[in-house]
Every structure is written in structure tokens, then in C-alpha cells.
């Protein structure tokens, strides 16, 4: 019999891919049900306006139209969109605007017709009489007296104020050799998954059952939310996340359209489908970041950082989505980065503005934190005339100190920050690169070397760290079928990450079977036990740990049954090559199938054991994991155009043990691309009146192939003690390391011109102006 190989740690082609490369995968818009109606949403062109009246008569009588709803039709009939994170002011978040619109793209009416073309024709016939109001898009201006107020019931635009005080920081500021002060901005970004959102709802009148296909990262949490908003029992709601074309946090939410389409299907007794267009995606799907930070950093002359004091202004947008006010917390708690900074304090002021809500976007608070920490290290180096490497080394948490309790109260699980930094420096050949940089400058070339040593928080997490109604555990069922193939039902909801492959690798090795003998099922609440979802790089570290718990239970049962058949103690048995074998002598074995037959056939009952071979487990992590690494980029700025050209991009990441090297590389690449995009290209722009300027992909600069470098990857491996696989998570690492790395490189290149800091995105035009001004001065 052929030997079954091991899969964990090997380069394994993805099991997901055949359906995706053949065009036979089923995304929401590919699901076809007979008699499906199409919905089109009419959205506000105004950032802030009172709705005097809406005339839908012409739309209702247009060809093919079945229904038209406005806010008035829904009043008191359906709940609002929930925000589960605590905040002082949480406004009612209607499915369709109630009397007032508060951002460009806010849903005002929805038209249902026989097809989407006819629904759009009818939507164009709706006459909304708006009375435009003054709008505010700048969060600092929104806090000023006399600013236009979005939600009158609160009297001002304050969402909430979070304070983490610490007098030790003020003492450090008082006695420091120097206090470095600066303001930095993490600009607003749009996640732009390639598949826009989409919803198909099918209400079955006779059984009172709702089935909803939606492009989501959290099918179970969404089921709970939908049931509550629509007033349905949760066991009559089925949420299916079919193939999902990217999420990046934008689909870790509960959106108006999900509830609207479900409501309409129930009202009309027919399937209703709504597919988001890209303009809607840029205007009415959550944005990320949008934080302004004022920093005070007390330091000693030798580069030792004594504390960080920060004030954040966080732009929440016009309404609060699922987790909106929870995101900035991570920016504050993680801003001390990889460093043994003895004291920190921060104040966060969260603000309503006439913009789309912000919420989780790849990294969710940690890219902002890493940007603060790593710009701080370079600022310190710059002000004190020290090398940025030296400043980092001086302040690193030493590897002996783990587990390390930070001054923010977090406990970092494991780390070796010097190892990752050293490896990156070695790859780039740092001394040589510095010499080349100096030489280039002599020839009028502006070359910069940027370093970012990041740490992030992953594997969310212990449930107490998450808002009410969002658990931190994850679930998995493992079922060995009668033919000894394995079915895995996971509570996570991957949408490109590839756990159909990694989980199959793990289960196959555990049972000594082939990877093709494992099927991984996810994203259907009628099939999979309650789960939490895919976000915060938790799929493997939390979902995988649940998988291994269930694997262990099924293994135990198989061993106990085999033990009676082999007359050997269970703890001396192992699984290999589709057999149960003696650990000490693999030749002494029985076929796995024989044990499975015994478990199902149950002709020789084992006292205290139930027949069958399945187990469900829930893994509640004891703590978060803290992946880390160092990224180094080398760039050259063309002073005549301001264009940034990459000469090298090196990423040394430590995500603990690696299950699938190919997939880890993919995650890191994609993360770096999005982080570089924040540094150089992307920004959601609203003008001062609240009008959305970046409403298409012509204006919003999601990077294309020739805008990105070739990435050179390497790893250090520091296992996490918090899960059985020793993994940390890698979904967001690239995004977190790359943004400060690239900004530091550009600022390093412009240092000879006396330029200290330029806010992102570092577009050519901005750099060109800064260079021109600096040369003039």
C-alpha cells in the first residue's frame, strides 16, 4: 500500500482552487432561484439633508416594479442596525433614512422589480425633495462649538471619549532629556474587496423559514443579528456565506441591505436579490482607519523611550456599525509596539461626521498602532542623531522577558524581536546599503532605507476582550464518516484564506490519511454548529485549535476501540498510513477502516462509550497571540516627479509555526500590498462639504500590479504557547509592518532636504511639492 505522506509544513496546492479557476464557484450573485426579484437602492447624493418628501408614485407604476419602500414604510416595523461595542452615544441606525440623510450614499429607498435594469429605471423616477444642511467632514471641526450636529438628540457630535490615564507619563515628560511632539494621521481607507457585497433572501411562507445568502465573514453572528432585527426565531433563520470574494474586515458586519432584502422577501413571498455596485461599495461599505494622533514622547539622550502620551481623534462617520467604536482601542493599547516603554496614557475622542461609518479594516487598530510606534522610533532617531536600528535595539523587549506584561496591560505571549530585525538587516546588507545610500546622495539621488519592527495582537481572543455579543471562542466538529473519510465543520468563515486546505492538512496528518480524504465545510448555519467567524487573524490560531480539540476526541475514541481489537493500551497507539499502529512498532497495526467499522457497526459495545465517530469542541483562548517581525524597504524618490520607486522590499515575519508555507506567503504578500497602498496611494477623500470625491476605482487608488514591488520573504519561528499548534496568525501582519516601513523609507530619503514628516498617502504630487518647498527654503 502506498505510503500516505505528511502534509503539515509542506507546500500544498489549495483544495479550493479547482472550482475558482474553472469559473464554477458560486458567489452570491451566482446563486439562481426561480422567480427571483432584483432590488436597487436609491442613495442620498447629499452628505446632510432633511428629507421634505419622497414621491414614489412614478416608480411604483413603472414596468416590472413589484415594490418600492422608503423609510416611512419601515418605521416601527423593523429594528435598526446594531452596534455591539459600548459608546456614550449610539444613534438609531435605520435601514432606510428616516427624515434625514447623514452621508453621501445613505440608503433612502429600495425598489424591487423583475430585473435589476427595470429596478434601476424605476429608482431613477423617485423624486426626493431634500433640504440640504451644513455638513462636516473634518472630525476636529465636528467637535467645535457651532459645528453642524448630525444627531440632534445628543446635542453635539461626540460618540464617546475613552481615557487611559497614567500620571507616570507626565512625570516622565517632566524629567526627560527631550520630549518629541508630533501629529500623525492614519487616513481613511476603503477595503475594496473585489467582490462587492451582495444578498439573496428567500422567505418560505409555509414554514416561516428565512434563508439568506450573503457575502459575509460572520454567518452565525449575522444570523443572531438578523433574527433580532426582523423579530424571527433564530432557529428559523439560515445564513449561508457561499464563496466570498474577499472581506478584509468590511464583511465583518451587519448591513442595512441584509435586513432590507430579508424584509422584502418576507413581505413579497419571493426571493429577492441585491448586488452592490462598486460606487455603492465605496460609499456605503465600511471604511477603515481615519485617526488623527497627537503624540508626546519623552526620551533620554541615548534613545531610551520613557513613555508615550497620545490624544486620538477618531472619525466614526455618521452612524455606528457593528464594532465601529471598538476599533480605536487597539490603536491605543498596541502603540508601545515591540518596546519596553514603562508608561503610556491616551485619550480617544470619537466623533460623528457626515461620512460612511468606519469599522474593521485589515489590521483594525494595529496598523495605526504600529504606524505610531514605528514613526516614533524614527522620530527619536532623527531628533537625537541616532541610527534607527540602534534606537529599536535599545528599546526592544528582550526575548528573556516573555511572557511580557506591557504597560498597557496586555500580555505578549512570546517573541524575539532582535532575531527578526537581525535577519532583515542581514538580507538587505544594512551597512552596505547605508554606504550605497550615501553614495547615491552624492550623485543627487534620494535613496531611503525604512525599517519597521512591528508586533500585533491576533487570535482574538479571550471572550472578555471582545464586545458583548461577540464571543472570542471558536468551534469545530470532526466527523469520521463510515468510509473513514473525515468531514470538518468549522465555525470560522474563510473567504480566500484557504482553511479548506490548512485544516485538511492538519486533520489528514492527525489520522494518517490523505488530504483528499478530508472535506472542510464552513459558512452555512444550517450545517455548521454555532461559530464566530473569520477576522483578526483568528482562523487558524482559534479555529484550528478547536479543530485539534475535536480531532483529539475522535482519535481517543478510535484508540480505545482499537485497543480492544489490538490488545494494546490506547496511549501506545498512533495513526499512520490509514492504520492504527503501535507507536513502538508500526508493523503491528490494523487498518483504520476496521476500527471505523467497529465504531459504526457497534457489534462489540464498549461500556461508557457511544457509537459513531464525531466530536464537537469549542476553543476559548487563554490569551491573544502576538505575531511580530521586521520589514525593510529601500526606495528612491525622483525629485523631479515625486514618484517613489522600490529598490528592495524585505519582510521577515514571525507567525509562530507554519502549517502551509505557500499560503503564509500569499497572506504576507497581500498584506504588504494593502499596507504599501496606505503609505503611498490610497485615501478616501470627502471634500470639506462632505461630498465623496473618491467614488470610483478611477479616483480611489487601489494598487495595480506595476505599482507594487517584488517582495523578499523570510521568517523566524517563535511558537505561541497558547494553542496546540504553536501558531500566531498571519492574515494582517503584512498590512501592519509595511505601512510604517515604507513611510520611514521615504522620510529617510528626504531627510537630507530637512523634511521631517509628511502625512500619508505619499503621492507623487505631495512629495514633489514638499521637495520643491524644501529646496526653496
Amino acid at each position, binding site marked *: 500500500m502506498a505510503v500516505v505522506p505528511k502534509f503539515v509544513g509542506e507546500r500544498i*496546492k*489549495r483544495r*479550493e*482552487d*479547482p472550482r*475558482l*479557476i*474553472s*469559473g*464554477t*464557484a*458560486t*458567489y452570491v*450573485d*451566482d446563486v439562481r432561484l426561480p422567480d427571483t426579484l432584483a432590488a436597487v437602492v436609491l442613495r442620498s447624493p447629499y452628505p446632510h439633508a432633511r428629507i421634505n418628501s419622497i414621491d414614489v408614485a412614478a416608480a411604483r407604476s413603472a414596468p416590472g416594479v413589484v415594490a418600492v419602500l422608503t423609510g416611512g414604510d419601515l418605521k416601527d416595523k423593523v429594528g435598526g442596525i446594531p452596534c455591539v461595542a459600548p459608546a456614550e452615544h449610539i444613534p438609531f441606525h435605520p435601514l432606510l433614512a428616516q427624515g434625514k440623510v447623514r452621508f453621501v450614499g445613505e440608503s433612502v429607498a429600495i425598489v424591487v422589480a423583475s430585473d435589476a*435594469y427595470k429596478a434601476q429605471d424605476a429608482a431613477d423616477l423617485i423624486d426626493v425633495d431634500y433640504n440640504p444642511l451644513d455638513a462636516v467632514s473634518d472630525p476636529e471641526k465636528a467637535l467645535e462649538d457651532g459645528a453642524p450636529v448630525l444627531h440632534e438628540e445628543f446635542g453635539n457630535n461626540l460618540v464617546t471619549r475613552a481615557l487611559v490615564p497614567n500620571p507616570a507619563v507626565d512625570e516622565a515628560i517632566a524629567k526627560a532629556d527631550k520630549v518629541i511632539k508630533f501629529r500623525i494621521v492614519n487616513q481613511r481607507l476603503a477595503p*475594496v*474587496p*473585489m*467582490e*462587492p457585497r451582495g444578498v439573496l433572501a428567500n422567505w418560505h411562507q409555509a414554514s416561516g423559514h428565512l434563508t439568506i445568502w450573503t457575502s459575509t465573514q460572520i454567518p452565525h453572528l449575522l444570523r443572531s443579528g438578523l433574527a433580532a432585527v426582523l423579530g424571527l426565531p433564530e432557529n428559523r433563520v439560515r445564513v449561508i456565506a457561499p*464563496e*466570498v*470574494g*474577499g472581506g*478584509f474586515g468590511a464583511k465583518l458586519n451587519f448591513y442595512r441591505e441584509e435586513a432590507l432584502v430579508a424584509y422584502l422577501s418576507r413581505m413579497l413571498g419571493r426571493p429577492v436579490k441585491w*448586488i452592490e*455596485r*462598486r460606487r455603492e461599495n465605496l460609499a456605503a461599505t465600511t471604511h477603515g482607519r481615519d485617526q488623527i494622533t497627537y503624540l508626546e514622547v519623552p526620551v533620554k539622550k541615548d534613545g531610551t523611550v520613557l513613555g508615550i502620551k497620545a490624544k486620538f481623534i477618531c472619525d466614526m462617520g455618521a452612524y455606528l456599525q457593528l464594532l465601529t467604536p471598538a476599533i480605536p482601542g487597539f490603536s491605543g493599547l498596541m502603540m508601545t509596539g515591540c518596546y519596553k516603554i514603562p508608561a503610556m496614557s491616551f485619550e480617544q475622542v470619537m466623533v460623528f461626521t457626515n461620512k460612511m461609518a468606519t469599522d474593521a479594516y485589515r489590521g483594525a487598530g494595529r496598523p495605526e498602532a504600529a504606524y505610531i510606534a514605528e514613526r516614533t522610533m524614527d522620530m527619536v532617531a532623527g531628533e537625537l542623531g541616532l541610527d534607527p536600528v540602534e534606537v529599536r535595539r535599545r528599546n526592544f523587549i528582550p526575548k528573556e522577558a516573555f511572557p511580557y506584561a506591557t504597560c498597557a496591560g496586555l500580555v505578549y505571549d512570546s517573541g524575539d524581536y532582535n532575531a527578526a530585525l537581525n535577519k532583515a538587516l542581514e538580507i538587505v546588507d544594512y551597512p552596505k546599503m547605508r554606504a550605497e545610500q550615501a553614495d547615491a546622495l552624492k550623485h543627487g539621488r534620494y535613496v531611503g532605507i525604512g525599517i519597521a519592527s512591528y508586533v500585533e495582537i491576533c487570535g482574538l481572543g479571550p471572550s472578555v476582550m471582545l464586545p458583548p455579543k461577540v464571543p472570542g471562542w471558536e468551534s469545530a466538529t470532526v466527523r469520521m464518516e463510515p468510509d473513514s473519510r473525515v468531514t470538518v465543520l468549522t465555525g470560522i468563515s474563510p*473567504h*480566500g*484564506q*484557504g482553511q479548506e486546505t490548512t485544516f485538511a492538512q492538519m486533520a489528514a496528518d492527525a489520522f494518517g490519511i490523505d488530504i483528499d480524504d478530508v472535506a472542510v465545510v464552513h459558512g452555512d448555519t444550517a450545517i455548521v454548529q454555532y461559530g464566530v467567524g473569520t477576522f483578526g487573524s483568528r482562523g487558524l490560531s482559534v479555529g484550528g485549535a478547536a479543530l485539534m480539540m475535536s480531532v483529539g476526541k475522535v482519535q481517543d475514541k478510535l484508540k480505545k476501540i482499537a485497543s480492544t481489537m489490538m490488545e494494546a493500551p490506547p496511549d501506545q497507539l498512533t495513526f499512520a498510513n490509514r492504520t492504527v499502529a503501535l507507536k513502538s512498532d508500526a508493523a503491528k497495526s490494523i487498518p483504520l477502516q476496521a476500527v471505523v467499522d467497529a465504531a459504526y457497526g457497534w457489534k462489540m459495545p464498549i461500556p461508557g462509550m457511544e457509537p459513531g465517530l464525531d466530536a464537537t469542541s469549542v476553543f476559548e483562548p487563554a490569551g491573544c497571540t502576538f505575531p511580530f517581525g521586521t520589514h525593510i524597504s529601500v526606495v528612491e524618490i525622483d525629485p523631479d516627479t515625486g514618484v517613489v520607486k522600490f529598490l528592495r522590499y524585505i519582510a521577515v515575519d514571525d507567525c509562530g509555526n507554519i502549517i502551509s508555507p*505557500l*499560503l503564509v*506567503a*500569499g497572506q504576507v*504578500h*497581500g*498584506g*504588504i*500590498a*494593502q499596507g504599501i497602498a496606505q503609505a503611498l496611494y490610497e485615501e478616501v477623500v470627502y471634500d470639506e462639504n462632505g461630498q465623496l470625491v473618491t467614488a*470610483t*476605482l*478611477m479616483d480611489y487608488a*487601489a494598487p*495595480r*500590479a*506595476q505599482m*507594487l514591488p*517584488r*517582495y523578499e520573504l523570510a521568517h523566524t519561528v517563535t511558537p505561541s504557547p497558547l494553542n496546540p499548534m504553536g501558531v500566531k496568525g498571519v492574515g494582517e501582519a*503584512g498590512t501592519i509592518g509595511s505601512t510604517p516601513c515604507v513611510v520611514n523609507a521615504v522620510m529617510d530619503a528626504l531627510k537630507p532636504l530637512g523634511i521631517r514628516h509628511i502625512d500619508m498617502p505619499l503621492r507623487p504630487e505631495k512629495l514633489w511639492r514638499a521637495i520643491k518647498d524644501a529646496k526653496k527654503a
Partner: protein
Amino acid sequence: MRVNLTVNGQPRSDEIEPRLLLVHYLRDVAGLTGTHVGCESTLCGACTVLLDGKAVKSCTVLAAQAGGASVTTVEGLAKDGKFHPIQDGFWEEHGLQCGYCTPGMMMAAVDLLSRTTNPSEDEIRHALEGNLCRCTGYQHIIKAVQYAAEKMRAAAGR
């Protein structure tokens, strides 16, 4: 109006609205949902198909304009139950994650490989600049195209 065209080698004749976009014709009339809609404005490339062998964004071509032409979609890439080398390349080199851009990306790559058999990395990056991918950061896509180019050269004995 009536449109007559060939889709993946099969002749078709359908009654359509004159304003129907080619991508909606392919998805909703021909039932080929492998071609995706990502922006409705030619900017993302998710809907790329071959029209008489040339890559076009099918969200900004009317079905009527494709009358008399031959359209190839992702569903038409595999032959005799075997993947096209570009499909093998994307699978082998992990050129996709969520898969949404992949059909359009592969069609654009097939167009490139019909014009040049051994494209440089730079040529590949430029040839794919009309196609957005949000997952991969493009590096594995470039390797996928190089893999396909090499396979196709070997098959052609070059």
C-alpha cells in the same frame, strides 16, 4: 433585438434588450457565471473575456456589439477535461485567494501570452494593469503567468 454570436465555441442566438451588457448576457442569458462583475466601469477587470481573441472588459461592451463575434470566457479555457496552462499556473503558484478577480485575470493573461511567448516580469505587470487583485499583492499572479508561459513554450516546442 436578436443577437447571434459564438460563446466558447457554441453558436447562440438570443432575443435581448439592446442595452444589455455583454457581461450580463453571459451571466444571465448564457448562464455562464464564471465571469464576474467588479466595478461596472472597466476599471477592475473582473469581467475580462476574449472577444475574437482579444481581452475586453465585458461590463462596457454591449451584447449587441458582440454580434457575429466569438467570445471566450473562463468556462471555455479548459479543453478535453484538462486545465489550460494558465489555470494550472494559477493553481500551482497560489495565484489566487478569494478567486473573484481570477477569471478576468486569467483571460487578460491569455491575451498577453497570445502576443508574446516569454514575457518579462515588467511586461506581465503592465499587461495586467487593467485587472485589480486585492488579495495576492500580484507576486504569485506573475509567477502563475510565467509558469503558464513556460508550459506553453514547452508544448509548442520552443
